[in-house]
């Protein structure tokens, strides 16, 4: 007998969303989160964030670029991307994707404007418009806050509105996404800021106070993240009616215990670090950053990839195998992030902006 069998229990259909979408959610979330961290000083005037606000702004743009590449690559027909902006406006109220199409124009415009205004004094040496620019930054940032929230919030809507997916279909998902975004934003900052301060700033000094504060805030957000998870999953697997059985099977049999362990450690360890003196230690800070970045990536993966593994018409959970093309896309995406980040850090005078923060403030 000759058989062409592709899976043991089910045929996995072409997956609508693959690794591009996982990465998009991650980069998009980290981008808006770092923008929001930027506004902690420039809108809410939390002085302890002054030294890292400039970083955060540049990071937000550097994170935005790979996010867009993910979107572009995920399109099966990237040559038609302009149609995304030209058509479908009749569904703007009920289509999160349509919200995305103008948010993804508005949001980068805000970041770029803020970057220009922030670094202009350091590039145009005799600028007389410092105060005005500062005011403009303030107003742009105020507008930018809801825009940023929506720019990531809409991505949470996209899976949440899918009725047929039992894991996704919860009104908590946009909130979960936003909290995850904040975690990843703080995480990437805590990881990258020390590296740049140590190796690329003139003073080679790491601002441990600011980063420690960031770490502590991160810990609180992780607590909130945990509470949201509990709310979400308790309703899904305990208080849901018929749907809960497949989700119980999903959590019990489909996801491996090692995944649970890694996922938990990615959040528990940074929480401990953030609430203890360890947050002043650079090594543990970096560890915290890496773990949260990985943890949130796992979360995005779980939502997108594992979520699509829940079958609707066949017995058995579907299996995902990353394709060669997807592997290349992922690697290219990381590369473009590094390229964008290093480029921005090379051409923008962030160290001058940083140094201006330390007048009269001591740091190690």
């Amino acid at each position, binding site marked *: *007998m*000759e*058989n*062409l*069998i*592709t899976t*043991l*229990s089910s*045929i996995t259909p072409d997956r609508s969303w693959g690794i591009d979408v996982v990465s998009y959610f991650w980069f998009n979330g980290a981008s808006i989160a770092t923008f929001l961290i930027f506004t902690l000083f420039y809108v809410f005037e939390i002085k302890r964030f002054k030294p890292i606000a400039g970083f955060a702004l540049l990071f937000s743009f550097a994170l935005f670029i790979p996010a867009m*590449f993910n979107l*572009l*690559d995920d399109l*099966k*027909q*990237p*040559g*038609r*991307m*302009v*149609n995304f902006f030209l*058509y479908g406006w009749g569904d703007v109220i009920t289509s999160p994707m349509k919200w995305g199409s103008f948010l993804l124009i508005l949001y980068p415009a805000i970041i770029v404007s803020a970057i220009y205004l922030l670094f202009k004094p350091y590039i145009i040496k005799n600028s007389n418009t410092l105060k005005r620019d500062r005011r403009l930054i303030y107003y742009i940032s105020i507008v930018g806050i809801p825009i940023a929230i929506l720019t990531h919030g809409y991505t949470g809507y996209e899976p949440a509105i899918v009725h047929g997916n039992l894991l996704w279909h919860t009104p908590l998902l946009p909130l979960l996404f936003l909290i995850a975004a904040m975690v990843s934003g703080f995480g990437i900052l805590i990881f990258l800021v020390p590296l740049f301060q140590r*190796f*690329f*700033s*003139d003073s080679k000094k790491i601002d441990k106070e600011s980063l420690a504060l960031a770490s502590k805030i991160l810990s609180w957000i992780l607590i909130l993240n945990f509470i949201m998870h509990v709310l979400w999953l308790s309703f899904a697997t305990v208080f849901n009616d*018929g749907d809960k059985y497949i989700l119980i099977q999903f959590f019990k049999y489909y996801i491996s215990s090692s995944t649970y362990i890694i996922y938990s450690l990615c959040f528990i360890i940074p929480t401990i670090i953030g609430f203890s003196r360890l947050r002043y230690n650079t090594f543990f800070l970096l560890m915290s950053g890496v773990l949260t970045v990985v943890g949130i990536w796992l979360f995005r993966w779980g939502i997108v990839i594992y979520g699509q593994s829940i079958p609707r018409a066949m*017995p058995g959970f579907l299996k995902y195998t990353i394709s060669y093309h997807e592997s*290349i*896309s992922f*690697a*290219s*995406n990381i*590369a*473009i992030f*590094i*390229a*964008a980040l*290093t*480029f921005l*850090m*090379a051409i923008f*005078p962030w*160290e001058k902006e940083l140094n201006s923060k330390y007048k009269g403030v001591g740091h190690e």
Partner: protein
Amino acid sequence: MNKNRRNFLLGTSLVTASASMIGYKETLKTAITMGSRGVPTKDEIYANAQETEGVIRDTFKKNTKFSISSSVCNGCVTNCGVRVKIDQKTQKVVKVTGNPYSPLSSDPWLPYNTPLEKSFSLLGKDSSQSSKYRSTVCARGNVVFDKADDPFRVLKPLKRVGKRGENRWKEIDIEVLLDEITKGGNLFEEGEIEGLSSIRDLETPLNSKDPSLGPKANQLCVLGTGDDGRKAFMVNRFVKSFGTHNYQGHTSICGLSMRAGEAAYLGDFKKYPHLKPDFENCEYLLNIGTSPAQAGNPFKRQAKLLSIGRTQKRLKCVTVTPMLTNSDNIAVGDMSEWIPVLPGGDLAFVMGMIQVIIAKKLYNKEYLSIPSKEAQKTMNDGSFSNSTHLVIQSGKSINKILEKNKTALVIDVKDGKLKPSSQVTQAKLFVDQEVEVDGVIHVVKSAMTLLKESAFEFDLDTYAKSSGISKAKIISTAEEFTSYGRKAAVDCHGGTMHTTGFYTTYAVMVLGLLVGNMNFKGGMSAGGGRYKDWKGSQYNLLEYKGKVKTKGCRIDKTKMAYEKTLEFKTKVANRQNPYPARDTWYPFTNALESEIITNSTKEYPYKLKAMISWNANFLYGQSGTKHIKKLLKEPKDSIPLFIAIDPFINETSKYADYIVPDSIIYETWGVSGAWAGYQTKINTAKFPVKTPKQAKFKNGEPICMDSFIIELGKKLSLLGFGKNSLKGNDGKKYALNRPQDFYIRAFENIAMDSKAVLDIDDSEIALANLEPYIETLKKICGKNWRKTAYVMARGGRFEEKEHGYKNDKLAHSYGKIINLFNPVVAQNRHSMTAERFSGVPRFYKARLNSGELIEELYSKKEYPLLAFSYKSNVLSSPSVSGKKLSHVRFTTYVDINPKTAQESDLKHGDIVKLTSAGGEVLGMLRLRNGIYPNTIGIEHGLGRDGEGAVDVTINDEVKKGIIRRKSGININKLGFLDSSRELATLSDFVVGSNARQALPVKIQKLS
């Protein structure tokens, strides 16, 4: 920043950006050039989405790029009415939806006189009635039409090259083919073959020593399949004109056990009526060996009505099968139940239920005591039975019903006297005594007494063990079943195709009798009937001068008792014990496709000289055909001339000598009725709605079964074809030269039956795309042409829903006596064992025809598992050539209970071999909890060896087979011979239905 560090950052940026660009090369290139990847779609925004067939504003405006025609889907045998959307330019079907006028696709269905335009605009999104009349097709119906473009479709007549079965062919002109098959000759360099002209001899006995076998003409066998609406044409116009007694359908490999059991119950072995529940009003439905919503007929209708019933908490649906299928659904909670049963164990389960019902007196005594039509009328009941009729227990008249002047005699409960049943309102139910009639003493028992004795022959523990269902469950099911009054119904089908299937079905039906559900709302129905089509007010299309009253013996030994044969009479005359016969005879079976080839080879009763098969595929559909393949390969041994009319080269037509292409779905003519399960009249009309692709006759008619039969009939000079062969009731005669001459007249009959339908107007003609038929309609139907077109536009004629019931009963009722005891069955003996058949349902263990038990011959030690097949909700044997269907169901598996797998050290995904006494199959193991332990379940429909699964050579060009079609398992390869017979497959011991369930097998892991 330090310059070096800045350069480092810039360098890093450059390198990583370059690497990234290489990775994103294709994406960026496509984005920048605004190019396309892969195969470009029709539209950038709407991809390959179809244009709509019209637009609904206030009214429906049709898109002239498409035609939307009414037709019939033949994805399975339900024959649902559908609407077909065809691209006018390419003549390809692009979409199929349900026909909202048809009860088989919609419930409720549109009132018949709803304007055609409304039948579209009512379904628009802004209509308040769009959900109500939304009409659907199933998974198969949605996609199966793509087989029209299958590369393996036969479009030109073929003649074999080389030996039979080598699957090598050459194209042949149809006229040459007709010439060869009618004249015969040394057609294949294998010796002389007698042609059909010579075979058609109505005078010369085919066996001079035994003229009872009939004339030579009987040596042609015509083998059909399920009735797709054209069977009446084939049988009445060709078979009965040629004069052969041998027409078989596919019933013996499909559901004969069910059909025969129900025919016994309804006391009609001529017409073989069958019953279905009134799904719409039923409150308790017991499905045995059938799984509604998984399979069954009418497939969609029953699924929809059962869903509605269960979600409204009006109906409890219980399915008794070895496999948990889509029939059970936790969404409806306790309105649905699955009772796992051992394959073949259903008879024991039902007999156990009957025992409980009788013991606890849960039966409807008042109903069962009605002995006659007169009493039925007096009692205002729905039917009557012979439960109280008296069966003679000894003497020459044994097993006959005690009668006087052709009226059954019963004991009146009022005075205990023996009286004609017509004079009694309530007769005594349990009788076991002597009575005197005209001075003769008879020992008699009532049918109900016989049933009781039969049911109590074994105890409940035995029934529980044999069925695999606990005693408690048997009792509780019996109690629950009888607690719903007349609104408890039963259904059964293919799961009963085993060696005791006949009695299984008979017993299942008797459950319904015990509650008196016949003809009651929510009970059992024989269907709503049909408008007169073949024999109507305008024409009698089935009668013509020269129609032969065929006679003799059928090749399958059916409809004839062994005791009437020369073999029997000779043995008796020679004072020999006439039993056993050389082989089994089937006095009340209607047809046995499964025995044609072997009987012809054995020349018992005689040898066939030719066979015309029409869309038949017994080599795939019959369980256990290894031996038949070998026989078919040798023309001289089996059947010298084999002509297949088939749109594909399937497992069976592969062995033909000639293949004549047939039209397929949406290309054919026909008028279908419906399986019971509907309460109003249904005639579904079909006519070609797209241009068939086959080669044509000289007159321009595409070659198909109908046109081929016409030309063959003319070639053979058969009466009933050509000029003046169609009879009008006005005395006029008409020609039958093309299929439309026949079918359009049938449509006209339908249109004019009882109150004639309305006239169609021109706007509806345009909407229904009937313009191409106008001239033909005018020519054929004269002044009735607009009425005929009205029927065509709506896809048939469908009685209004409100005519289905009269108060608490069905408006179209079954009027004949219900047979708790069937005297025809009881008066016959098994031709091998001389065993008298029980006239009431009785428990038998699975057995060969000789009576030897399967469990003893094939012990559990050697064959520990029982294999069964279950019907697919997606696949069917005519659907493998549908490419899109493979996206829904790619392959099939060996299903096993995880407990059983664990005991045999087997795991999910193992490649295993199943072996039976007759064959073996390989498959991939799939563990599922919803299957009876120690059984194997196999979804039927794949594992093909024909219809594109294997290489075919035509005109020396090899067409490579599509390997995917071989994927999966054909359970029929596990079928085996009945070792107590000569060259015959395992079958039901009473009616001969092919036993394809409960096959003992063993399992072995391969990898």
